[in-house]
């Protein structure tokens, strides 16, 4: 990888420790130059293209907040109509607000119609560009500026929308979740998605250091904790069926993930905060059960014999 030219150039305006800009840089290392990117309004658009500067060394377009998917569909249609499709990959990118909230309807349309595009949602779990407001992808009990923790509230009271399952329900060939805590997993899934013709959806967990209230040096560690606690399960769907999951050996309690982030810090101070943390643990337990994440120890029968 070191020999490659960075197609997402340095010098952009992302924060130190930003998981989302790491996502863009890694993405282009995987795709190479034969790609056209459409991007929704959001942090990654704003930090990368303040006119007259651009961090993009591949063709890139931004139109609006909620239309990265249909703009990509239009590009794909144009390439097909003019015989320029070749191996050019069309990739649409949006944050969780653009993808899971405001652009969800038209994303569904693009997926259902079978356009040969890859949609990647960088999921930092709130509207970070506008100042950390709650989105449909914000986890339970996270404090945001529109779901602040207060004397009578623990923060966001709804659960994270299960967007990957809804995408998989379209019967599209490939859906995956991944995390910038595991760049190799991300690269592998992007590579796999791009080898498949038709609509693909990848949701990548990525930190927002001010939005989550974390030490910028801990970005990767915290993303890994999300996976290790089953707060952010990593899996693949192919043609509507789960075909692989990232197993967890010795799953950690969610407390270890929550306590490192300011957005959950109220849970450790408020009366009954423990009960809320228990509820979050149950969400993680359900994830683990649903996807069969826990590695079951195999040594036990042998021990029994020895007795």
């Amino acid at each position, binding site marked *: 990888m070191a020999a490659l030219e960075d197609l997402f150039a340095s010098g952009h305006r992302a924060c130190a420790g930003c998981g989302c800009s790491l996502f863009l840089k890694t993405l282009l290392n995987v795709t190479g130059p034969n790609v056209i990117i459409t991007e929704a309004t959001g942090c990654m658009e704003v930090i990368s*293209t303040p006119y007259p500067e651009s961090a993009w060394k591949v063709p890139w377009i931004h139109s609006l907040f909620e239309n990265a998917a249909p703009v990509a569909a239009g590009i794909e249609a144009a390439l097909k109509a003019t015989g320029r499709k070749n191996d050019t990959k069309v990739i649409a990118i949006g944050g969780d607000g653009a993808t899971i909230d405001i652009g969800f309807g038209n994303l569904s349309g693009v997926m259902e119609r079978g356009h040969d595009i890859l949609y990647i949602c960088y999921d930092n779990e709130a509207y970070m560009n506008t100042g950390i407001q709650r989105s449909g992808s914000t986890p339970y009990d996270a404090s945001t500026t529109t779901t602040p923790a207060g004397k009578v509230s623990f923060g966001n009271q709804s659960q994270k929308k299960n967007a990957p399952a809804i995408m998989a329900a379209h019967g599209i060939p490939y859906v995956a979740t991944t995390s910038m805590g595991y760049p190799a997993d991300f690269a592998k899934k992007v590579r796999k998605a791009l080898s498949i013709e038709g609509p693909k959806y990848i949701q990548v967990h990525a930190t927002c250091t001010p939005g989550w209230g974390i030490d910028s040096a801990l970005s990767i560690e915290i993303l890994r904790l999300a996976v290790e606690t089953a707060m952010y399960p990593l899996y693949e769907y192919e043609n509507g069926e789960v075909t692989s999951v990232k197993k967890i050996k010795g799953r950690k309690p969610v407390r270890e993930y929550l306590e490192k982030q300011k957005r959950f810090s109220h849970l450790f101070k408020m009366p009954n905060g423990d009960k809320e943390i228990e509820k979050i643990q149950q969400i993680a337990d359900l994830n683990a059960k649903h996807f069969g994440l826990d590695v079951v120890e195999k040594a036990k029968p042998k021990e029994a014999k020895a007795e």
Partner: protein
Amino acid sequence: MAKMAVIEGSHAIAEAAKVCRPAVVSAYPITPQTHIVEDISQMIADGELMNCEYVRTESEFSAASVILGAAAAGTRVFSATSSQGAVLMYEVLFSMAGMRLPGVLAMANRSVSSPLSIWNDHQDAISARDNGWIQLWAEDNQEAADMIVQAFKIGEDRRILLPVMVNLDGFLITHTYEPVEILDQNMVDEFLPPYEPLYKLDPKDPVTMGALAQPEYYTEARYMIHYAQLCAKDVIEEVAEEFGKKFGRYKGGLIDTYKMEGAEVVLISMGSVIGTMKDAVDEMRAEGIPVGIVKIRSYRPFPVEALREALKGAKVVCVLDKNISMGMEGAVFTDLKAALYNVKGSPDILGFIIGLGGRDITITDIKNLTNKGFAKMRGEKVSEMEWYKLDVDILPEGI
């Protein structure tokens, strides 16, 4: 030899779009635009529209986004919509013009909710007037078809690079059968060369489109759109004349005039009502009444100079607006007053809100409001702005 056919306005539009060889068509069905997209679907199904991707979206917002993306990829694009669909497109329409991406949208003009009405007026397009699109207005089926071809040429001109909306009255044009000369493919190919974009999304030559503009750049970017609109005044005239020479039909450039010789009262409007106005004026002229018509073909850019010139001898102008800017007046009325405000000896101007939500406009109506123009000329008291034939009997008491 040109082929004539008695066809719906919608079919004429679809035929015109076809011979312009769009690479991508995207649309969502809405009354009264549906026949256009159905006809194009049939052309695709019959293999008549080759090398064209037709994307049937889940909303007008997406249809507009699809053609925006396809235009950015450097191809010729077409869509059609109406009313609520157009309103749902508004955000994308601003974006497409701002990004200087040409393309043509046929707008089957219809009223806007609420109350729900599927019938014709001009509110959908008028409320989209500030988004940077060029707006052309057709009087009949033939002009609508011809305008589609002209619209591509205008929008793709390197001096312009803007999308163009071709307005045709819902039902009155879309669903009405008239004799139309079918555009010949070879002649259109000669008139409208393949689209050569200035920039396109291409991995061989990467560009960034749709960057963020700080206050240092935003004003200038917006000024350039305005400047292109001003340049379009010449280009619209040029293209109309070139079309006239090639196809033998010239229906005016920015405006057209009818029986303006010695006209003291002049009627101004846009769209299919011009046909009714012509019938009324014919009858009034036969009685020796000096009345003429100015038809606006280009609403944006607004033909300020052309209107000043055409209205030089007029005493009173009556503007028929099939739209209303709530809390003010009809949009064409406002614009015309603005255009003539600093002109010495300019005529008195009367505004009429008429034909909203599909209410018929008859020859008698045209004559009645022309009479108001002459009353004004004689110095009688006439209200400057009137909701024509407002039925006070069905209004609540006290209004």
